[in-house]
Structure formats: C-alpha cells, structure tokens
C-alpha cells in the first residue's frame, strides 16, 4: 500500500495529466467515432445512393462501417492497448479522484457545480455501462443479455436490435436494456463534453472567463451533436425489425462473397 501511495505521489502530476489526456484521446475520440458509426443506422437511411428501402440503406451502411472496423489488422491489440487499457486507467484513477470530493449542489446549486457533480455520477455509471457493453457485445457474456442474444459483427444491426428488444420481439427486459442504453449513452456523452471543457482549463488552454465560456459553447455543441448521434443509434437499433435487418445483412454478406454460415440459428 505504501509503495502504491508513494507511486501515486511521485507521479502525481503525470498521472493526473494522463487521466485528463486519456479522457480526450483516445477515449473521447473513440466515442466520437463509435457514436457516429453507430448512428449510421440512421444517417445511412438518408443516403440515397444505396439500397431500396430506408431500412436497407441503414443496415447496409452500418454493416459496411462495422466491416471496415473489423478489417483493421491486429484489431485485438488495437482494442486492448488503444481502448481497454486507457479506459481502465481513466476509470480507476477517475474513481480515485472522484472519491476525494464532496459534492455540495444542495448548498451551492450553480450550473458549473451541477456539472461537477454530474461529471462524477456519469463517470461511475459510465464505468458500469462500458463494462456491461463490452462484456455482452465483445466478450459474449450472453447470460447478461435478456434473451441471451450474442452480438455478431457480420450481423451487426440485427443482433444489436435483438439485444435492445430482448429478442426478435420486444420484451420488458429488453425495453429496460434499451432505456439503460439511452440513459448511459447520454451520461457518457455528457461526461465527454464536460470533460472536454474542463480539460481545456486543466491544461491551461482557456484562461480568461470569456475563453472558458466560449469553449463551453463549443463543447456544448459537440455534446449536443454527439447526444443526437447517441440517441439516434439507440433509437435506430431499437426500432428496426431484427428479422428484416437479418435478411438485408444476409444479402449484404452474399454480395460480398458470403458469410451465410455464421447466420445465427433462428430462435425457437
């Protein structure tokens, strides 16, 4: 314990700054890409060049995005070192730092103070959510998913829709998962946008009250756009019909040279 403490003390500044840095890069940047990619289920529908129906355009666009990601060489290595470790680092230190504060919005209900408190709350919730999200979708811990659906990267939209519904049809547990996704994604987007704002103060990029305010508008803009993307993703996946989406994905796979053998067995 003492060695841990002295390590923390010795490298205090470095760790603090790495915590701030990892929040923006790579985690924040990843969130940016992740949500815009996911939102392709909606913005793909707006792309008139592909497919016949809106659903088809959405599902195909999203599948293409996922395929592109999965074509990355050494994907696991990139994930582990570029994402999971930074997230674990940011989370662990975040909890450690957050525990040093005593929120007091009751006595001082100022907007910035609410954001301070929410930053910590959203951090805690975000950690639980990210763990659930990665465990269920990446590591295949399907026992945590209502309906036991496993996400497949080559049936990206349809399996996601199943997970958010609890199967091909809506279930109460599925609705709860959808709601949780909606709330948690919103929290994470807030966490990122507000973190982007505070990091500029931490690093001393915005000094004057005016600069802080204006950077605040920028961060609020980024946050709003990301929030839209996040909501679009969740609502997009939750509202598409998994069965129809699966058909589109099958055609998409066939068009690319076929991956039909990984088609999940229809649920009884």
């Amino acid at each position: 314990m003492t060695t841990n403490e002295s390590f923390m003390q010795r490298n205090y500044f470095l760790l603090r700054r790495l915590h701030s840095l990892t929040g923006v890069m790579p985690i924040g940047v990843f969130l940016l890409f992740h949500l815009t990619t996911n939102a392709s289920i909606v913005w793909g529908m707006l792309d008139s060049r592909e497919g016949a129906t809106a659903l088809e355009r959405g599902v195909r666009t999203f599948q293409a995005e996922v395929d592109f990601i999965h074509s990355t060489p050494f994907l696991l290595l990139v994930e582990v070192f570029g994402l999971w470790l930074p997230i674990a680092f940011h989370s662990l230190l975040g909890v450690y730092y957050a525990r040093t504060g005593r929120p007091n919005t009751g006595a001082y209900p100022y907007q910035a103070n609410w954001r301070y408190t929410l930053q910590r709350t959203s951090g805690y919730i975000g950690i639980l959510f990210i763990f659930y999200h990665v465990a269920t979708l990446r590591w295949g811990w399907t026992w945590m998913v209502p309906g036991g659906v496993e996400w497949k990267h080559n049936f990206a939209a349809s399996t996601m829709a199943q997970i958010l519904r609890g199967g091909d049809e809506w279930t109460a547990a599925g609705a709860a998962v959808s709601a949780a996704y909606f709330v948690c994604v919103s929290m994470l987007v807030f966490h990122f946008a507000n973190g982007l704002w505070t990091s500029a103060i931490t690093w001393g990029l915005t000094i004057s009250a005016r600069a802080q305010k204006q950077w605040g508008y920028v961060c609020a803009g980024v946050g709003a756009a990301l929030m839209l993307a996040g909501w679009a993703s969740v609502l997009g996946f939750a509202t598409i019909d998994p069965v129809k989406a699966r058909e589109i994905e099958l055609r998409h796979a066939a068009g690319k040279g076929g991956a039909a053998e990984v088609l999940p067995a229809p649920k009884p």
Partner: protein
Amino acid sequence: MNNGTPTASKPRSAARSITVRIKRCDGPGKPARFESFKVPVEPGANIISVLQWIAAHPTTDGGQRTTPPVWDSGCLEEVCGACTMVINGKVRQSCSALIDDLAPAEGDTITLEPMTKFPVMRDLMVDRSRLFHNLRRVKAWVPIDGTYNQGSGPRESPEKQEVRYTLSTCMSCGCCLEACPQFTPEPDPAAWNTSFIGAHAISQARLFNLHDTGKELATQRLDALSGPGGVSDCGNAQNCVKVCPKKIPLTESIAAMGRAVTLHGVKRFFGVKD
C-alpha cells in the same frame, strides 16, 4: 443626545424583530446544538449587529439564560476576512450580510452556522490555520534581499497592476474553500501539505509569479502546485468564483496556473530549466 440619526435614502422597514438560529458548540469534539434568539433589528442592521445584541442579551427565545455566542469578526467592512460564516446555508462575510435582505419580514428566521471545512473552535468560530499554511506552500511572497534602501521596484504597466491588484485583494476569508467540493476537512496538520491547496493559494501563486522579483520562486511554486493537493485537484465546480466576496477571478487563476504547470511539467520532463 442622539437626535437626527442619519438615515439612508433607501426606504427601509421600521424596527421589528426576527429569529436568529445559531449552531452552538462548546469546543472541538463537543456536540453541536441550535439555539434560537428573538432579536429586535433596526433598519440597516447586519449579522454582526445582531450577534452583538445577542451577546449583550444572551437569553434564548425560550427564556433560557445562555452564554454569549462566540464568533470571529474584525473590520466589519468586508476587507479583513475574519467574519466568514455559513448564513442560511451559504458561506459569506457576515458583516456585509444585511438583515433587510436576509429576513425582510417580521419574524423571519436566519440560521447561522460555522464553516464546515475547518475545525470549530467554539460556536461560529473556526480555526483557519490551514488556509494560511497553504500560503506558505506556494511561497506567497516576493523574495526581496532585505528592507534596507535599494531603490525602487520594477516598473509596471497599469494593465498588469490592475491584474495584480485584483488578485492581491484576497483577504483569506475562506469562502472559496468552504464552497469548494474538492476542499475537504483535514484535521491532521501533517496531511496539509498533500491535501488540496485551494483556490485562494493557487491565485496567490499566480499573483507572485506575475511579479518580476516574485517569479524568482516560480519554479518552487509550480513544484508545489504540480504535486499532490496542487492545482490538478481542482474539479472545476467553480463555486469559488461565485462565492468570492472580492470577485477575484479565481477560475482564471486556476487555468493560468494549469497552463504554467503544464509548461513546467513538459520542461521538467525534457530536463529543461524553467
């Protein structure tokens, strides 16, 4: 003898009475209790004049004779920083807390509590030694050779003077610390050097780093602000700047010191001297 007491032009309520609830505590570690007093107030009265009245008439509204409450005060014109307390849940200077604003109607209640971030000595009086200790952590002084005559100091533009003057009006009242969610009670003086230093000290570090001679100690100040309890511990709740009675741009100071420790850290990482 007192004919024609000056009155202010602002219309004010006539003499009336209010209830003042005071959180009392006989000493460190002793249990706290509330006592209420019914106090007649004149127009223009403030918390201090009310406390002075209670001290002279220490009988609770239940008719119980009690000890005069203990509180800290000094100049009574909001320049010495002594009379900080928590009034109706918010920290502020009690001298500038006017009864007509806080309890405008007959019978209104005002609640007085000591600050929560410092050890209570008795009643409303706390021990703010840690606040002053933190000024030592950032070496908040100009390292002059001595007081013998050596000619004048450095010339300075009015713009820079304006910035330094504003920072230099910090009266160490502790409002910024009381309102800060990151500044938490620390009864053990041995831990003061690694617990959060607070907005006031960060701002003082900026003040002295701005001065031509003061910046001779900039490296040491930035070392202190880089370490545990330094500027990185700020959580940007920005309550400090909201409650500062002197309107000191504390959050700007925090950002400015954030930049300074960033550069300092980078230079140190590459072995470059400041």
